[in-house]
């Protein structure tokens, strides 16, 4: 964070109900408030906790780096920021199976907000997108792979490509004719569990670990899901956004860039407006939160 940013952010409103914005880093640096554990990644000790009514947020019990029960995910961080802005006490309602959190949690009223879905997801009412990102090629810096797009030759010769089934990466792996010879590695990533109707979790940190160790040469993952691990890797890794122009064999476009929004049940206009206000008012904080995570941000338009 550079000093220019510090000085332009001179407004620090502590008093109004609506705008109880506390930038932990800002406070740490200016020394205005003594905060314990004042490091970049600490959960902020908030000088005044939200006083408004409880807001139930659907959150993943264990889907890092988005969310977990300990609140270590970046969507948990965003949730806290949102709670501050709306002055609502956050109550997390945890789901385990990502296939059904809309059907079985949000739409059943067990919780009222979801933090990360695709903008325009037809199942729900989505806010304006609060960021746009893309799938990324991840590899070891030292390998110096010429990875620009799915047309890059190197993708045809590497021995292992890590990807998550059901994602655009799988479609592209098939399109470049590498599906068969990367299939077994893909199954190995989940310990050879073959569950046709059950959710089998792909551990992104494990896939990044395989890149760091050299077991696999490339992983092609949704940037936000991998950013933190790429950043934390002891072996320097590179992350390149896949251009959105990828097409499969029949010429059909396979989108690589997506916008993320928050969402509520259809018809919950008031809450949706509040979330949109939050996103608009705090777009700097949100952007910084995402940059902190290492997420490659693309322009929303």
């Amino acid at each position, binding site marked *: 964070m550079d000093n220019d940013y510090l000085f332009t952010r001179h407004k620090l409103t502590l008093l109004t109900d609506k705008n109880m914005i506390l930038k932990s880093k800002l406070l740490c640096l200016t020394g205005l408030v003594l905060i314990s554990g004042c490091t970049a990644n600490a959960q902020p000790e908030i000088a005044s906790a939200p006083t408004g009514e409880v807001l139930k947020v659907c959150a993943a019990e264990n889907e890092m780096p988005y969310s977990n029960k300990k609140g270590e995910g970046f969507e948990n961080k965003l949730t806290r920021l949102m709670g501050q802005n709306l002055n609502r006490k956050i109550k997390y309602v945890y789901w385990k199976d990502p296939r*059904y959190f809309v059907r079985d949690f949000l739409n059943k009223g067990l919780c009222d907000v979801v933090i990360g879905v695709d903008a325009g997801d037809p199942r729900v009412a989505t806010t304006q997108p609060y960021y746009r*990102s893309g*799938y990324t090629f991840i590899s070891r810096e030292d390998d110096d792979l010429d990875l620009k797009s799915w047309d890059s030759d190197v993708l045809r010769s590497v021995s292992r490509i890590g990807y998550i089934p059901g994602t655009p990466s799988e479609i592209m792996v098939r399109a470049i004719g590498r599906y068969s010879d990367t299939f077994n590695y893909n199954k190995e990533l989940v*310990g050879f569990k073959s569950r046709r109707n059950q959710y089998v979790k792909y551990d992104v940190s494990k896939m990044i670990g395989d890149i760091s160790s050299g077991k696999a040469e490339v992983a092609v993952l949704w940037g936000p899901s991998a950013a933190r691990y790429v950043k934390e890797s002891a072996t320097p890794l590179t992350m390149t956004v896949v251009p959105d122009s990828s097409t499969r064999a029949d010429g059909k476009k396979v989108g690589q860039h997506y916008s993320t929004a928050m969402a509520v049940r259809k018809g919950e206009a008031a809450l949706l407006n509040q979330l949109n206000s939050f996103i608009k008012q705090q777009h700097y904080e949100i952007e910084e939160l995402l940059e902190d995570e290492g997420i490659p941000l693309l322009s929303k338009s």
Partner: protein
Amino acid sequence: MQIKKFARNMGTTILVSSAIFAVSQQVNANKKLEDLSEQNTNWVMQTKDYNASHYSSMYQINIQNVHKLKPVWSFSTGVLNGHEGGPLVVDGIMYVHSPFPNNIFALDLDDPDRILWEYKPKQNPAARAVACCDVVNRGLAYAPGTKDYPPTIFQDQLDGHVVAIHAKTGKMLWKIENSDIAMGSTLTSAPFVAKDLVIVGSAGAELGVRGYATAYNIKDGSQVWRVYATGPDKDIGIGEGFNDANPHYGQYGLGTKTWEGDAWKIGGGTNWGWYAYDSDLEMVYYGSGNPAPWNETMRPGDNKWTMTIWGRDVNTGKAKFGYQKTPHDEWDYAGVNYMGLSEQMVDGKMTKLLTHPDRNGLVYTLNRENGDLVNAFKIDDTVNWVKKVDLKTGLPIRDPEYSTHMDHEAKGICPSAMGYHNQGIESYDPVKKTFFMGTNHICMDWEPFMLPYRAGQFFVGATLNMYPGPKGTLGQVKAMDGVTGEFKWEIAEKFAIWGGTMATAGDLVFYGTLDGYIKALNSKNGEELWKFKLPSGVIGHPITYKHNGKQFVSIYYGVGGWPGVGLVFDLQDPTAGLGAVGAFKELAHYTQMGGGVMTFALD
């Protein structure tokens, strides 16, 4: 070179006589096992004999006295999990095996109180996690001693190794790796001995393992031949003359042409089932399993040569014929079930036959010399994915209502993925010319889904729900004519008959049930004459043998396997185990895990 020169000088006498000597040695090794298999004192292979008859000519125990059968001794293997296959008995020694960790015990039938020897392998514990459907093992194989090697017991281990053990001492003779568990490939099959070879299959189709069968030298475990289920003809063992008698089955290049791109590389077709052997024709028979991945939209094409009945030259592995039963499988009807050989009249001519009850609910009878399709009929009239098999083309005429496409929800598909027949070995009574089949009667609903998540990711899958078929129970036992497709009698069983049957000249057919009964029926009419409740359910088959003039029946107990996954792994979701958990949810009310062998005799 030198020998030839010598022969030219000395005449060809020496060369020819040494060739005859070599051939007769080979024939002797093979013949000896065959002779042993015909002796009532033995049960030398899992299939009982090379015909896989599971039939004994003994009638000491018969329909008059079987009600007096009682347990005379028992032995616990010390292992839980499903006990498939059966013990072997050779020269008064019983060889008992267990599921993982695949322990082997030898018991002297003169003194079954004591363990003669045991072999407890040290295996990579990671093998457990990779196995899909319980850590079963289908049994041991035996080769009699020759001048080149001692009497040997063989076992396929879960961690992919094949081991040869001295049958008298229990000492390991050699061990080789057939399958790599790091690739998701384990072994659950029983090895098969023919001539001086031990033949081993493969498993792990769903994980991208391309199926293969391998023959190893009994003497030292060196590889003699290996044939794949998919890929170039050379890999599959397809050469000139393949399917010449039935070119419409398909001949050349189809192991690649019936796949898109290089999809054959992960095409599956693993074979973990049973073999049969004709020592006159020197042909070995077995079936290749299901294609991969399970989602049929990912592999357009007939997917040859998965789901195929093979007739191969035992010396080279070369295929004489291959008949694909279920082109482009959609239901997981793995084609690895047992092959029962018989010789019967077909159109007024005595014909060598092969009869095979497939997972797909059809029974196929082929001329085993050339692969001609003699008959293909439904094992139960409720089979519905297929209307019938066109005997001229060999192709199933499918009913699209029971397809499992990703855009189609199908209800009441019969058979379910478990098949109307699974891995049990059945029996054939050559006097009655009747096969006895223990079957499944399980149907399923198919619910595909494609659920959105985020960032363009979808969860693609399918939920299977399984339940008893229209006749109301999960299993049946049937007596059938393999040539005409006529059923002589049929009885209902509460649970699937997973382990197979054994028949005798005493007019009896024996089998075990999943809830733990060993039963004896009158093989003429299916009347139940005797049963005994074992300590745990049965997924193996009974055997019978004579010792010191007395007839015994032995069977493994120890529920598990695919039907037992809910019970074994304490699963609650009815759709888990591809729906097996729901289908067999009642089982836990009747039995729990166990593991051992129980032996019965008359007083």
